[in-house]
């Protein structure tokens, strides 16, 4: 059972990384134009 003392904090830590990524994505405006993001994928990059 003592493995839990290690595993639970680890699991939470991984979750926290996800949460941090989520907070970053909100702050940087990733959710401000969901419809546009869905369509932008169709734009071909111009060959440089």
């Amino acid at each position: 059972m003592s493995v839990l003392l290690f595993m639970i904090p680890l699991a939470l830590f991984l979750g926290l990384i996800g949460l941090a990524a989520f907070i970053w994505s909100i702050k940087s405006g990733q959710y401000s134009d969901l419809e546009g993001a869905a369509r932008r994928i169709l734009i071909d990059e111009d060959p440089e």
Partner: protein
Amino acid sequence: MAGATLSVQPDSDGPVKTGTVIPFIRRDAAADKNELYLSVEGVHCAGCIHKIESALLKFPEVMQARLNFSTRRLHLAWSGAEDMADRFARTVSDLGYRVTPFDPDAAMRRDDGHTRFLLLCLGVAGFAAGNIMLMSFALWTTSAATMGPAMRDFLHLVSALIAVPTVVFSGRPFFLSAWKALSARRTNMDVPISVGLILTTGMSCFELLNHGEHVYFDSVVMLTFFLLIGRYLDDLARSSARRAAGDLIAMMAGAASVVESGKIKSVLIRDLREGMTASIAMGERIPADGVVESGASEIDCSLVTGETIPQPVGPGDPVYGGTINMAAPILVKIRKQAEDSLLGEIIRLMEKAEQGQARYVRIADRAAKLYTPVVHALALLAFLGWVFVGGMAWQPALMVAVTVLIITCPCALALAVPVVQVLAVSRLMRRGIMVKGGDVLERLAGVDTVIFDKTGTLTLGHPALVNGNAIAPGEMQLAASLAARSRHPLSRALTQAYKGDFLDIDVREIPGAGLESVVQGRRVRLGSRGWCGLADDSALRDMMEIVLAVEGETPVIFLFRDLPRSDAADVVRGLERRGIKVMLLSGDRSGIVENIARDLGIAQWQGQITPDGKYKILEGLHAGGHKVLMVGDGLNDAPVLAGADVSISPSSAIGMAQNAAQIVFTGDDLAPVMTAIDTARFSQKLVRQNFIMTILYNLIAVPVAVAGFVTPLVAAVAMSLSSLCVTVNAFRLRRRV
């Protein structure tokens, strides 16, 4: 533009006028960076985004060009000269999109900020709910005997470490709103929610310290998560439509061209001062009340007075802000600042009307008013009952009382309304009907009287040729060829009605009179009766007309009418079938109003009515206990739009009317009015069913909780199930609308 006193560019539908975007630029001199927001119309695919962005990025000065597809707003940042903005705006409009500069005011950004805040709270609660289940599943499926009390305490502790910060962080939307309500001595749905969240967290912490068997950290986090979903959906429904409305206000706060010592300068409308001289191009809106200084033209007052026939004006005649200059460029001396003008008076009337509307209480808050005392009394009774009758110690009895609060916490109740309304609003949005907020649907469902405006609402708002069949093809061709050179609304209607080839002729436009040409050696005139040599005949005055006069021949009269929307009669009948009374109130002449009312089968109508008169009728209806829906598009409707229980505006309406209305629809049909009412009624039915389900749920759950049988597992299952039920029921809307 012969006869015009000014050499301004008269083309209003074409590229942006020079200088109009300058006042909207935000310049950061230190960083050498200019920023501008443009609202772009006509964007509908990825290709559009790419075309616009890449065209702008070709300029070496442009640092950023990003088009937000959801809001149709283009954010531009560039270095160097400010007046580059004109070129950027023209680049976009040359691609075939209409651009309007706008001022991203503080209120709008606060709005976006709130949505983002809710999303952040929701994200944190979601993370916590997912992770706390890690502990909860172990706690639910094993007993203390197999796990050992030390392990159980450890899992409880970890749960607490997740739950307490989550409640503090993500519970804020509820705590703040509950506090606001309480300090105003009111109650709303958030009061029982907050009490429930705080008590449950507190009690669970107490249990944790006393090595108790049950803690409800998982319930409290799940509760927060579910409640936030409802709250976020609710906010989403409002903000999308509000944003659309915000664009319109921004456009209204546009710029005017002012003539100063022989030069034309662009000034924000709100900065206009008495004595300034504004140059009004053809098709442009007059920014404030004033007097015509030079030039002769015709003014379309339909949005202010409801009158369809343009008024001729010349030097010395007064003109009102909000009306449109139709025939030729004029110079207007501003007499009153924008806020003191007729427009300003209407705004004041609107504010008065809006104050009256603030009394409406949303259905969820009405439910909370009944719900809160009942639930809290039940919990208290359970506590007192167990202590004094059941002979229980106070801690377990308090635990029972708290579980009553947890299980009755209005989780499903908080979802019951927003899920239905969000689905309804987004369905309507897809059909071109923008609804500003879910509570609009509640009000719309209860409507029993509809007031229609005439011009632009029941009718299309622009004239159409009615006697085209009676005119010989040769005359039609000649008239259309002349009319094609003019932007006057009647000329446009005439051109539109003609399908063939145009003659190649030279045409001269005489402002305020008409068009003139010489064809095969004979003078040809197209214009007003008097100018074409006909006596005034007032019998025909409820129609608009232009006359074609060929030298030496009998003049031909073209008649025009503002035709009703094609399905207007059906909509009127449909409304009456649904038991709704229909009225027609218009500022236009009684004769015209009577004709339309008769055509469409509207029994109650009134013409030549002032904005104040319309508002008085509304007050009379309110006093009689009627719930009124106003459908209108003009400035003269704005106070009634703001004061009615609900109001609908077509998207062709002026910004102020769209802003005052809670629903805006697009397209040439009137059917959206019916669609909106039907959807509102059906969604209100679903809301009622959801409430009944939650009551049934509570009838079962409360006795169980009072009896003390509720464990954390039971609470979690009950909560999820009830929330799931109301959500699934709400989705029935998809099949209906």
